[in-house]
């Protein structure tokens, strides 16, 4: 049995220690907002927070997640009203949307570290997240907008 906390809920899972965190989140736990895109940490669709740091869950074995706190897109905000989620709606960012959970989780980790990111900060923090629909221009605008919201007193 491997124990970890996902979105504040303790989980005890009977899975192999080498199983990637991604598949534990999606299947036994059943949270499907975290996506499989490449399996080799190249696309970022599976990005979650592990003890607050953004990681590609497709290459994190369960043995490395044991005892840690995982946050997925479903746990980012209890009402889905994180400044990034609101900014994403205001900027009408998603197209197909498949990569967007990962984009938002990477952006959330960035804003937690740098409340007022520059374009260069965004380039660096979001470099691991591919979007095939090409929403990058709006992703950038939404991150700046969310940062402004936070400065303006939003959570």
């Amino acid at each position, binding site marked *: 049995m491997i124990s970890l906390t996902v979105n504040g809920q303790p989980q005890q899972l009977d899975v192999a220690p080498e199983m990637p965190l991604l598949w534990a989140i999606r299947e036994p736990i059943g949270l499907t907002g975290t996506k499989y895109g490449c399996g080799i940490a190249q696309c970022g669709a599976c990005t979650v927070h592990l003890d607050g740091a953004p990681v590609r869950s497709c290459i994190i074995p369960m043995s490395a997640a044991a005892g840690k706190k995982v946050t997925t897109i479903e746990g980012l905000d209890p009402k889905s009203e994180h400044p990034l989620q609101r900014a994403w*709606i205001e900027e009408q960012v998603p197209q197909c949307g498949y990569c967007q959970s990962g984009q*938002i989780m990477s952006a959330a980790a960035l804003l937690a570290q740098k409340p007022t990111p520059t374009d260069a900060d965004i380039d660096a923090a979001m470099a691991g997240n591919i979007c095939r629909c090409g929403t990058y221009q709006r992703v950038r605008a939404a991150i700046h907008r969310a940062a402004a919201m936070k400065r303006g007193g939003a959570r």
Partner: protein
Amino acid sequence: MTATSVTRRAILTGGVALGAGLVLGFRLPLDAAAQTAGVFEPNQWLRIDRDGIVTITSSVPEMGQGSMTTMPMVIADELDADWSKIKVEQAPANPKLYANPVTGAQAYGGSRGVRDHLALWRKSAAAARQMLREAAAKEWNVPETEVETEPGVVIHRPSGRTLLYGQLVDKAAQLPVPQNPTLKRKEQFRYMGKEGAAARLDVPMKVDGKAVYGMDVKLPGLLVASIERCPVFGGTVQSFDATAAKAVKGVRQVVKVTNGVAVVADTTWAALNGRRALKVTWDEGPNASLSTARIEHEYARLITQPGKVAKKTGDAEAALAGAGTIIEATYQVPFLEHACMEPMNATAHVTADACHVWAPTQNPGGSQATAARLTGLPVERVSVTTTLLGGGFGRRGEIDFITDAVETSKAAGAPVKVVWTREDDIQHGFYRPATYNVFRAAVDGKGQPAAWFNRIVGGGILIQKGRAPANTVDGAAVSGAADLPYDIPNLQVEWVEKDWGVPLGFWRSVGSSQNAFITESFIDELAHAAKADPYEYRRALLGKAPRHKAVLELAASKAGWGSALPAGVGRGIAVAFSYGSYAAHVAEVSVAPDGGVRVRRIVCAIDCGFPVNLDQIRAQMEGGAVYALTAALYGKITLDHGRVQQSNFHDYPMLRIAEMPKVETHIIDSGEAPGGLGEPGVPPVAPAVTNAIFALTGKRIRTLPIAQALLTS
């Protein structure tokens, strides 16, 4: 869905006149038992409940293009519905109700959402609005002409009376469906063509993880399968040893299917582990020695042979024979794979008397027909739920992944989701054809083209799929080349077919994706040879192509064509028609000493006829630019020993955020019939960029991808 509504839908299905195209829904059966009380459903596109909720059924799969919003905008506008009361559902597979009225198939590609349905959707919603007005007029005993609507409410201004749509559903449901309702005038539109009028309905669920894609389908007792496929196209299973695979924890069964050997397991991880332990011996078939080197070598030979004439105006060969100055060039483009963010997948549950498919498909009708064929069930026993699509780009019009799921479920006797890995996706795709192209132009003393000869060698998507006759010119292979917009008196475009056995598919903008690159590069070569400005040179030749000319002029004007640029930055331009729309792009590009290309800015002008959803037009131009730039800069699928050599994003790279240019979109409302938008933003991008590279460096890129061309120069 209740049993009553299933029965009712079956009745409704039978009520539609087929072949009539624009028949506006069906009369409701007067048998009260067959009706859903409290619901006004004048046709298959919309229903209104007593609480005023308008539920719209979208036939076009949502693959990112915004169909789940744009279609409701059309309906809501003609219905005069309150946007906050709109709900949208995805249509089930039912070609009798939901086939595209132009193609006759319930399959979506070719940027056909709005342009093929706008008239039908508008009339269908206008009919419903007229019935609501009629119902209110009867209720108030006033002439129908005195009855108007505001969003969600019918109004009789002389008496100040109002009724909500929800209050009228029972009465409206009893009325006949008008066949020629009055449409709104353009100035009456509330949503269509209005800035900020309607936010995307699918965005909230795409920012908190609730959106359900094919990969996310959950069912009781669902098993997951991964299929080992022959690495060589056309190869087959000779034998396999499943002993080790079956010993993997969680693996249930190993079954042979059309596309390989499926390992069926309790979870995706177990299926992948089981697959790694599986041993398959392949009969690799006739393509086992195929390589990119051989293809390129053979193309260079075939280009010297006459092709089938796709377009002939005047006598280009005679004009070239007598010409003083001839300009020649050869262009090559590679195979490309779509690389949808969501790898291919589908779920099926086959039982003795029914089959249900859940799939992220562009082709619900084809999925249903495929499942019926594979199971032997009548189509009425096959239901298809179209989930959200994690990208489509043409790849999801194919039915290979449907075949996987149906066959595996049938063999396993359980509901099964077949999940592809990224490697499966890149190595078992339906590829944009690689082509080899030659141009010869005769130019007069002023550098004006007197003759244009273009021969294209490559595969034919339509012919390979049996959708066009063998030994004809494949329309998809020459689109964007045979319809050259420039006024050149002698024009000949030829096509030489060469099918390598590599599966071919419709890759966002299809033939125009490569043919705009080659033609808009070569016209640029002619302009520079004439020492003319490439914009003015094109413009002067577009006298018979006013819509091309208008977008070209707008893009040039908005980009500041001719104005000074910073040192180290070049500017290029290109224009193309595809899928009913006209697009022109100006690219600003810098090239680093190490060959690194940076596209700083793209200015796009688009004429898609009547523009319905302004923000999603911009989104499609932004997305089209990224899709095109990824291919132009990096995209190349190569083969060796019959195998695709690329496997994942490390060797088939995608544009990332730091490389994103600023994309500015300018929309022309030409008042013409609506055109497509998913594809038309792609074709001019690559040539605008390579023309800018030439303007900056003097290096003409004649082989894609650019990165490789610059490195090998």
